[in-house]
């Protein structure tokens, strides 16, 4: 019953009044920012990263995890109420959720989204707790060759499933890896690509890059679109579900939870794929497939449970192997590194209180979201009626002040503007910034392992193919690339993306 002891340790950490408060604050401001149209979890985390810097690592991670769920929950709220998905994973929620809102069932839709997420969160936390120890023990047997190949596999996996143009996404990974090289080389002490700028000797700040590519760039894009939002004027009445609704939605919640927990663990899996897959499954298995898209509650319950389960289980590869499986987790990895914690199998043994504390706080975050956010829905809705022309200068301002507070210098603010410009160029050229962030986070680790491995093998690159585990990862990575590059599947994928 080591698991129980571990969870008890986690409860001790997470339930301390201070950490509980940070979990609460994180969930609240995460929702607050996540509710704003067009701002999903990635943007929210990018914008709010600096607010956690003053805290001790455990509290900071707990607060960030809270921000993450809050933002995701905020995203489903906007999807349901105003048909504006904050991020790709809540696009699916728009389909039936907004239709339900139009029929006056917004309350039921919001409640099932929250309850589904809660059930999924509980189950996924358990999955995480059970898998963490054995997986991190496996990871300890990895040498540098295995690690390098695993990272290749993880990076390829993250773009194969989630990108529309594979070759561009691979290019973005490589560019991200290169950006990660900027700064002082750990082994030799040489300054790389710093252009003689002193502030760059520590590398590009993760916050600047993330905030520029996601925060600033998204503001510019939203301003270009000049879209008018139609705000739902109907009053929210009755958050409670009818018994019939619950009976209909419960199996969907369970299916979504299982599916999401499974897909979340895979590299490149996570919230987006699982919500889409869950929707397909619900529609295919339903007795009334024609009612989907017209306000079927299963179309909200399944995907919402799936994306929450997945967003939680996707912590498994990060915390046990040190590989972020998607961009949100790359943000978490970046945040951990800023706090001096290298994500990976060592966290669990060297810092068990932190590890189990964060895991338990995820569950608590879900409880807090259900208890607090459902009553607060009215306030979130009112926030949505604030016009964008007043909101975006405020977001910019908070970004700038946050950036200044990271290092108490103004260089980071200018650097962020530059990253924002880069993000704008990427957007115009239809290159996704997510793979770049993943590459950026993994870059230094990848180089270190490559160097160590080649040093041990005396420069013989065949070592990656003679060690069975390493070979397996590389073969899997190659297989994924080939499978996706095949024309028949490409057509199928294009169809899946347009659907």
């Amino acid at each position, binding site marked *: 019953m080591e698991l129980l002891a571990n969870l008890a340790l986690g409860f001790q950490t997470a339930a301390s009044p201070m950490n509980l408060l940070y979990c609460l604050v994180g969930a609240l401001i995460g929702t607050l920012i996540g509710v704003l149209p067009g701002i999903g979890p990635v943007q929210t985390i990018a914008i709010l990263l600096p607010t956690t810097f003053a805290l001790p690592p455990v509290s900071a991670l707990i607060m960030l995890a809270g921000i993450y769920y809050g933002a995701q929950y905020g995203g489903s709220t906007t999807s349901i109420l105003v048909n504006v998905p904050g991020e790709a994973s809540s696009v699916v929620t728009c389909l039936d959720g907004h239709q339900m809102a139009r029929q006056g069932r917004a309350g039921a839709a919001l409640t099932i989204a929250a309850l589904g997420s809660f059930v999924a969160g509980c189950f996924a936390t358990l999955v995480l707790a059970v898998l963490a120890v054995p997986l991190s023990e496996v990871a300890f047997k990895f040498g540098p060759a295995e690690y390098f190949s695993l990272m290749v596999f993880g990076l390829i996996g993250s773009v194969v499933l989630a990108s529309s143009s594979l070759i561009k996404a691979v290019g973005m990974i490589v560019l991200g890896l290169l950006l990660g090289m900027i700064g002082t*080389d750990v082994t030799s002490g040489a300054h790389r690509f710093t252009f003689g700028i002193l502030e760059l000797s520590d590398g590009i700040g993760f916050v600047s890059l993330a905030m520029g590519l996601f925060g600033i760039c998204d503001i510019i894009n939203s301003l270009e679109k000049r879209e008018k939002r139609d705000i739902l004027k109907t009053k929210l009445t009755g958050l409670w579900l009818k018994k019939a609704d619950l009976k209909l939605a419960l199996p969907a919640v369970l299916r979504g939870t299982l599916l999401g927990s499974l897909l979340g663990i895979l590299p490149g899996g996570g919230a987006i794929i699982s919500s889409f897959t869950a929707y397909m499954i619900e529609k295919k298995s339903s007795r009334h497939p024609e009612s989907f898209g017209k306000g079927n509650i299963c179309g909200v319950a399944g995907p919402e449970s799936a994306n929450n389960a997945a967003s939680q289980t996707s912590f498994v590869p990060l915390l046990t192997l040190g590989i972020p499986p998607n961009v949100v987790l790359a943000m978490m990895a970046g945040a951990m590194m800023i706090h001096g914690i290298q994500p990976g199998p060592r966290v669990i043994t060297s810092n068990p209180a932190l590890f189990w504390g964060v895991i338990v706080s995820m569950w608590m975050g879900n409880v807090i979201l259900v208890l607090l956010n459902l009553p607060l829905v009215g306030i979130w809705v009112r926030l949505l009626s604030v016009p964008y022309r007043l909101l975006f200068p405020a977001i910019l301002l908070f970004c700038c002040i946050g950036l200044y507070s990271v290092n108490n210098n103004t260089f980071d603010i200018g650097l962020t*503007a530059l990253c924002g410009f880069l993000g704008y160029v990427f957007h115009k050229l239809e290159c996704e910034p997510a793979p770049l962030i993943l590459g950026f986070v993994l870059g230094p680790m990848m180089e270190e392992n490559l160097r160590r491995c080649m040093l041990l093998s005396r*420069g013989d690159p065949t070592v990656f193919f003679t060690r069975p585990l390493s070979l397996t990862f590389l073969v899997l990575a190659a297989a994924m690339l080939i499978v996706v590059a095949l024309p028949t599947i490409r057509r199928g994928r294009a169809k899946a993306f347009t659907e």
Partner: protein
Amino acid sequence: MHIRHPKDFLTGVMFIFFGAAAMAMSVGLNIGTAAKMGPGYFPFVLGALLGVLGAVILLRGVAGASGSHEWPILQVKPLAAVLLSVVLFSQVLLPLGLLLSTVLLVVLSSTASHEFRWKEALVNAAVLVTIILVVFVYFLEFQIPVWPAFVAGRG
């Protein structure tokens, strides 16, 4: 030469540029050997890989069959107003202090919107100044200069 997919073509150009720049700068860094890699080794390899990927994308942009045929459309006003206001903020924060910098940032960035109105932007700035004074300066006690340097007597 007719460019069929401008976005792919330009992406290719961009990747080749970054790849070539990385390779050129890595050469100056000491590349080393595979067994004893210098600081330039990995970036050089990455640069080469990026260049190759860029070339493939570029060729696809010229000759490929599928994809969009549109040139990217740029709108100068939102881009310039947002970026300039952020850069301006970074430059004036220390000499002018948080109060004036905030007003400048909010008003300048507001012009990016097609619904810009002077009066509204100024009111918004006033509200935000109050909020940040209370939240960041008073409650969170951020170490950040509030007043202009010549008023507060900072050199």
